[in-house]
């Protein structure tokens, strides 16, 4: 019996008629390995090809055909395992999972049952709620990662009476990543999938494209009284987007709670998520569960990896988000919060590092997390489609640092940059935004403001806070271009 010690935050509890409930979630994510050829055949894996054009004799289950393992796929599994901070098993084995279906030409799926290539690991996730508020980080345990073949695709809607089968996907290599039941809310489940996606994309082992089905999740859902005994779980198959993951969990948890509160029992079963109706429904009950008759595939030898092979992969691993976060904290003196946000995916991290290099790292972080991401979100763009590059944004920060413009003016300049009006320098020149640093000119403005406000000037000695009023007046008079430091300095000299 596994234990699930962590209890969800009360904010994640679900209110029922009879009290609060807590959701327990475990995910099985299928990630398609980004390989050119299939796990056991040389057929291509390219997406979108005409039906049955990427099928070898092996994939079609022809008599006498034999699988030969694609070493590239093994390497990707090991790489992903290392990215999940997981145990790499030097001994693993392929087993046959036997069942009949039209899209399974061999009558069995080659998978890894008893000896997966990757064992236990863990990753840190940061749930974000519906309002965009970031929660505390959560550690999610990885149970295992194993390799298996995908099945073909049954097409039921081309004819009222026939089912068509496309075997292009038959034999494509999948990594099944099984989590421990460590998640407690839809936010956490979605953050977990998002983090897995980030990791496999950073590693290049899977393109993470959920729309193409290259990353899909089966969600195990059960409910219990907060901290109480675990309930019976249901598995929801093939949930194909972040939104559906949340929807499916919310629906399923509520369904289970309603049953339990009405005095019923949950049947352990496999359920299907209907994204049109936003509900889950029974696919097969425990009684109908297949007996897959797993046994070692006699056509394949066990996989015995050399430690040096694993070490070689380890040595060439790109930096993982967790390690990168630690480095950002140390190297750029960032807070844990800022570091986490900036190190999460390799694109963001690379953008930040370009921006921070040779500049004040904290200012760079503030700009990126503040105005820059704000603008991206508002315009529904992402880094790859951003109209402002890291170098361009850096150019703007440089003008703040060398006192060419003030931080306030910089915000306006940035908006214009984002609007495609040019570089920071071009906009500053064009709009004459350069800060006034001529002490004489500033002094004249200061004098005029003092003369215009004699009453206020008299009170400054007793109430030094009033100096702010004069700063504001001078800045206004200068159209925001006066150097605030210089204005302050001269005002103090004259009024204090």
């Amino acid at each position, binding site marked *: 019996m596994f234990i699930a010690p962590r209890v969800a935050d009360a904010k994640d509890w679900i209110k029922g008629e009879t009290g609060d409930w807590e959701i327990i979630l475990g995910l099985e994510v299928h990630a398609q390995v980004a390989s050119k050829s299939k796990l056991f055949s040389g057929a291509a894996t390219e997406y979108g090809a005409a039906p049955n054009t990427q099928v070898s004799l092996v994939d079609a289950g*022809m008599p006498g055909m034999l699988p*030969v393992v694609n070493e590239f796929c093994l390497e990707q599994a090991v790489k992903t395992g290392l990215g999940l901070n997981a145990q790499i098993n030097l001994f693993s084995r392929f087993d046959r999972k*036997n069942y009949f279906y039209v899209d399974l030409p061999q009558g069995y799926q080659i998978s890894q049952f008893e000896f997966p290539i990757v064992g236990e690991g863990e990753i840190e996730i940061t749930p974000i709620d519906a309002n965009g508020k970031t929660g505390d980080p959560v550690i999610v345990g990885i149970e295992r990662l194993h390799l298996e073949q995908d099945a073909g695709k049954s097409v039921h809607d081309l004819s009222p009476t026939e089912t068509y089968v496309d075997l292009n996907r038959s034999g494509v290599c999948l990594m099944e990543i099984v989590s421990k039941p460590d998640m407690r809310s839809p936010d956490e489940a979605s953050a977990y999938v998002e983090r897995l996606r980030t990791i496999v994309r950073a590693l290049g082992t899977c393109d993470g494209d959920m729309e193409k089905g290259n990353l899909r999740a089966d969600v195990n859902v059960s409910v219990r009284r907060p901290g109480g005994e675990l309930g019976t779980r249901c598995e929801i198959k093939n949930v194909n987007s972040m939104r559906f993951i949340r929807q499916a969990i919310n629906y399923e948890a509520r369904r289970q709670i309603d049953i339990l509160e009405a005095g019923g029992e949950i049947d352990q079963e496999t359920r299907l998520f209907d994204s049109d109706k936003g509900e889950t429904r029974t696919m097969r009950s425990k009684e109908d569960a297949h007996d897959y*008759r797993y*046994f070692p595939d006699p056509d394949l030898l066990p996989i015995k990896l050399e430690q040096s092979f694993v070490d070689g992969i380890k040595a060439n691993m790109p930096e993982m988000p967790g390690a990168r976060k630690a480095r950002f904290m140390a190297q750029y003196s960032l807070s844990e919060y800022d570091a986490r946000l900036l190190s999460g995916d390799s694109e963001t991290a690379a953008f930040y590092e370009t921006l921070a290099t040779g500049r004040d790292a904290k200012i760079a972080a503030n700009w990126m997390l503040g105005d820059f991401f704000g603008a991206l979100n508002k315009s529904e763009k992402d880094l790859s489609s951003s109209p402002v590059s890291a170098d361009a944004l850096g150019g703007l920060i440089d003008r703040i640092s060398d006192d060419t413009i003030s931080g306030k003016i910089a915000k306006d300049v940035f908006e214009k940059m984002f609007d495609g009006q040019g570089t920071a320098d071009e906009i500053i020149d064009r709009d004459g935004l350069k800060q006034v640093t001529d002490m004489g000119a500033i002094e004249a403005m200061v004098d005029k403001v003092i003369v215009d406000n004699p009453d206020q000037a008299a009170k400054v000695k007793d109430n030094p806070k009033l100096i702010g009023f004069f700063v504001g007046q001078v800045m206004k008079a200068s159209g925001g271009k006066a150097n605030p430091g210089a204005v302050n300095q001269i005002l103090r000299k004259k009024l204090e």
Partner: protein
Amino acid sequence: MSDLTKLTLSGALDGMAKGDFTSAELTQAHIKACKDAVKLNAFVTDTHELAMDMAKASDMRRQKAKSSGQSVGKLEGAPLGIKDLFCTEGVKTTAGSKILGEFTPPYESSVSANMKADGMVMLGKLNLDEFAMGSSNETSAFGPVINPWRKGQDLVPGGSSGGSASAVAADLCLGATATDTGGSIRQPASFTGTVGIKPTYGRCSRWGTVAFASSLDQAGPIAKTVKDSAILLESMSGYDPKDSTSINAPVPDWASACGASIKGLRIGIPKEYTIDGMPAEIEKLWQQGIEWLKAAGAEIVDVSLPHTKYALPAYYVVAPAEASSNLARYDGMRYGLRVEGADLADTYERTRTEGFGAEVRRRIMIGTYVLSAGYYDAYYLRAQKVRTRIAEDFKAAWEKCDALLTPTCPSAPFAVGRKVNDPITMYLNDIFTVTANLAGLPGISIPAALDADGLPLGLQIIGRAMDEETVFKAASALEDAAGFTAKPEKWW
């Protein structure tokens, strides 16, 4: 010209090399013999026209090679038969089953491709037990093969390579491919007075050969002499990257090992290789074999293979288990027979009920059962443990000896129909041969004597993994000593 079909493979290759006759003449003679032997039912598919084309092409190659001083293929121009378990490009392949229907592979098995590359002429596809499951060639969907050896009534040729054995024994071809999962080469060789060798597991690629039990299946030849079997095996063997269990090792010159001295060779006699009810003649023949080898200079040592008695039960768990999974692909969806039903499950059931014969269905059911949840540990896992013990038994024996001598089978060929409804008795045929499959070792059967009824009996040599050379040496010594020249009287 004397009857060319009476030649050995080696003799025929020499004759063609010397220009005594052409492949076309040789092939023509064999085609005639095949046409005369329809009663034996040895072939499922004749490819006589194709054979003549291949023979003529071979003769041209030979001529061309001669003029340019080049050598020809190892099997150049030799008319041979191919067990119908090997997929042959453009030629219907049935595995002895109805379920494959008119299936004509668009590819060639690695073994037959090797032989074609060496110049083989293919006379046709040889009958066999359905999916190689049987010991009498009575489970074939194309009717039983009849043994050319006869005693008042029709006898079985053994199985599953019954077509291969009968065809070679009746001089319908110079040699044939066969496969051996539990004894399917050696037992029919013993029943027909021919030589049959199953090499070390992994010597012959399994790619393109219809699978029965993947961890046990191994191709090999059935031939008229030990040397012929060596020549054929050399052509059939070789590393194949398309088969993950293929062994990456060079193929030795086994033909040269035939006739080499066995002086000082240690031959082990496993005391467990005798069973209740085994004819005294077989016991006697085994003793005779010991004397022959001793006389040829071998040292005889007693050895023990204590787990032998568990071999047959373990085999009849492992082989059906793998078969139940291997045969799942015959579902009527992509090729072969399809019997339409009310829905998918019904279509599966009708197709497989009609397509598979009783023995195949029995083994699929046994295999499905032993892999089922709750039975896996008790059957499949335990059988695999037995397999390990058996391999360890052999390993211990190799400390004391270089090869083993045993009878091939516990009986002489029996009458058609006698055991077909009694699977347990039928399964006992494999009792001395399954051990080599379970341990992956090379084993050969050599015709050694006729019993009181004038029917052939074989002796078996089992060797170390990868040491076919010693097996051929010992077999060749036995062959010389036995001087087995008997041939079945032509009645067909």
